[in-house]
């Protein structure tokens, strides 16, 4: 049976590129090295919920139609629109997004990607503060302090810790895996270790402990990696941590600002911040200042609550300020596998990473004004194209309502919730399984996505579908001009 190696996993922003797939009769039958979500995707993508024929809504019902007809109808809707939104893009290739931007420019629409409802606020604050960051290997090689704040890699990025942070093996820093095992052993005995290992969705433990014997001796005295988790709940990631700080919901900003004051050796005029005693915070601040290389990863726990974008502003400022004392970097834990790519392509073509409004014939950007949820809440759009995303099940009800009222085109492999609301539904191939392309990892490293099996007959990749719609729109416009 053919085995395809070095496959990139199209699930989360970690973009693990060491997946091995066994193919039998054009189907994936075995997945090696992947986490639970990776396995579920590669083994389960071709399920009964797959859409296999283009559909069009007639008399309130979705009925099957030809691809040509579906593309023609989609093109008509977009060509007629006065203010269409084109949304999604984080679960497809950069190449598809690129065509999407051209399409948005052609129809004078608003093109937005899913970062608007995940790390959009992070981007807004990066635009105010900047961001000291690096690629993930830099952390693997050098970081002796890892902080996860409002992010739970155990659930959202299962192999992040193993591949890039605490349990990875670097040139100057060794894996903290053994220390973790010892700690667990001391705490709960052998049985729990097995389940802990299982929970981590790692390779076999023996492989881990012997994995990568160091070929060079680090001249730096190894001090051992530390892991700090800061969250409103004691997450599974928190259980692994050397320190856990439980912050009151919506109070992350105060905590971050308190850390900023502490690392400047300033006294706080309060005993507790965000429910945490100041003495405890002083210890954590000490650990931050005295490490050789610290890395702070943050997730939606910070972007979505309380101060929202300003949580990130404070986190970025904290890490920037820490660079006066030591080396420290910060990185958002990007969710969808190519949300970073969607931002990246959008930025190089338009100057802006998301929420780009082409209605005046050139790119304009102002999240809050040109972002999809706001456009929907104000009921401004009069047509919508959704690619590789499911906003109806991700947006607040009020925003989803206007989306469902718009003439709605959906390009997606699955019959997801948004697809069920579609007026035109065009099934697509799975990028990274049935179609090749490029994706950007959360640290902006571009990684190729492979085509490992063929899509079902007649099913095209997003990129190709979008090209055809664009060509059809140009045809319609030419006709209109001639008339």
């Amino acid at each position, binding site marked *: 049976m053919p085995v395809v190696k070095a496959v990139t996993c199209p699930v*989360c922003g970690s973009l693990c590129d060491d997946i091995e797939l066994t193919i039998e009769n054009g189907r994936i039958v075995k997945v090696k090295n992947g986490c*639970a*979500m990776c396995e*579920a995707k590669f083994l*389960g*993508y071709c*399920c*009964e*919920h*797959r859409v296999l024929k283009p559909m069009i809504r007639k008399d*309130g019902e979705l009925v099957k139609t030809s691809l040509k007809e579906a593309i023609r109808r989609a093109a008509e809707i977009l060509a007629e629109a006065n203010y269409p939104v084109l949304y999604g893009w984080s679960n497809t290739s950069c190449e598809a997004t690129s065509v999407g931007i051209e399409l948005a420019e052609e129809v004078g629409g608003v093109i937005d990607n899913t970062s*608007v*409802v995940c790390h*959009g606020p992070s981007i*807004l604050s990066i635009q105010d503060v900047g961001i000291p960051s690096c690629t993930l290997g830099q952390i693997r090689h050098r970081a002796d302090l890892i902080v996860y704040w409002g992010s*739970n890699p*155990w*659930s*959202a990025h299962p192999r992040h810790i193993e591949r890039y942070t605490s349990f990875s093996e670097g040139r100057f820093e060794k894996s903290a895996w053994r220390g973790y095992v010892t700690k667990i052993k001391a705490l709960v005995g052998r049985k729990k270790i097995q389940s802990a290992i299982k929970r981590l969705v790692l390779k076999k433990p023996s492989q881990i402990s012997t994995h990568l014997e160091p070929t060079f001796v680090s001249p730096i005295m190894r001090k051992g990696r530390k892991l700090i988790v800061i969250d*409103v*709940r*004691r997450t599974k990631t928190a259980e692994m941590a050397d320190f856990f700080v*439980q912050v009151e*919901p*919506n109070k992350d900003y105060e905590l971050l600002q308190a850390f900023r004051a502490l690392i400047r050796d300033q006294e706080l005029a309060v005993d507790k911040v965000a429910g945490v005693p100041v003495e405890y915070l002083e210890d954590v601040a000490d650990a931050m200042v005295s490490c050789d290389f610290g890395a702070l990863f943050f997730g*939606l*726990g910070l*972007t*979505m*609550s*309380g101060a*929202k*974008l300003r949580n990130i502003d404070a986190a970025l400022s904290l890490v920037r300020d820490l660079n006066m004392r030591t080396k420290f970097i910060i990185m958002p834990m990007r969710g969808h596998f190519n949300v970073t790519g969607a931002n990246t392509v959008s930025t190089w073509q338009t100057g802006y990473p998301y*929420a780009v409004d082409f209605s005046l014939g050139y790119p304009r950007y102002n*999240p*809050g*004004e040109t*972002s*999809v*949820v*706001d456009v929907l*809440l104000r009921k401004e759009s009069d047509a919508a194209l959704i690619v590789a995303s*499911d906003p*109806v*099940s*991700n*947006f*607040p*009800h*009020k*925003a*989803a*309502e206007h989306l*469902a*009222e718009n003439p709605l085109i959906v390009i997606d492999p699955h*019959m*997801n*919730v948004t697809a*069920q*609301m579609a007026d035109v539904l065009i099934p697509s191939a799975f990028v990274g399984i049935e179609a090749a392309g490029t994706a950007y990892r959360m640290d902006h490293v571009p990684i190729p996505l492979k085509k490992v099996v063929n899509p079902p007959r007649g099913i095209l990749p997003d990129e190709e579908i979008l090209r055809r719609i664009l060509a059809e729109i140009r045809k319609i416009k030419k006709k209109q001009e001639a008339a």
Partner: protein
Amino acid sequence: MGEKPKLRVTLLTGRTIEQGVGKEHGKSSKEYVESVSVCYMDPEDMKKLGVKDKTNIQVSTAFGSVVVKAQKSLRAPHPSVIFIPYGPWANVIVDPETHGIGMPSFKGIPATVEPAPEKPVLGLKELLELQFRKG
């Protein structure tokens, strides 16, 4: 009705690995639906309300109200904090206000929880039909 216990809480929504796995099985799959129509609660809070594991509760915010299954949180203690995975059920009650930045408030929303043994957890189709004309 007035005596019915009601708990004031902070609602968080977010990702879970079950939802992540369920999503890859397809959004109409049983796995997905079951993974997102639940509410994780602190066991002490459940005791206070008198709700048992896997029984129905009604969660309400200023923006809507939805019935989901209560589930004992493994991440306790987190008194007065409840957690619902991202999905159509959570969307009924999250705060759409973006505060001028494009992002609605998905976490940290004031909410109330009450037992709802007599009310059903709606299936996906029913939920959508109730909310949208299409589907």
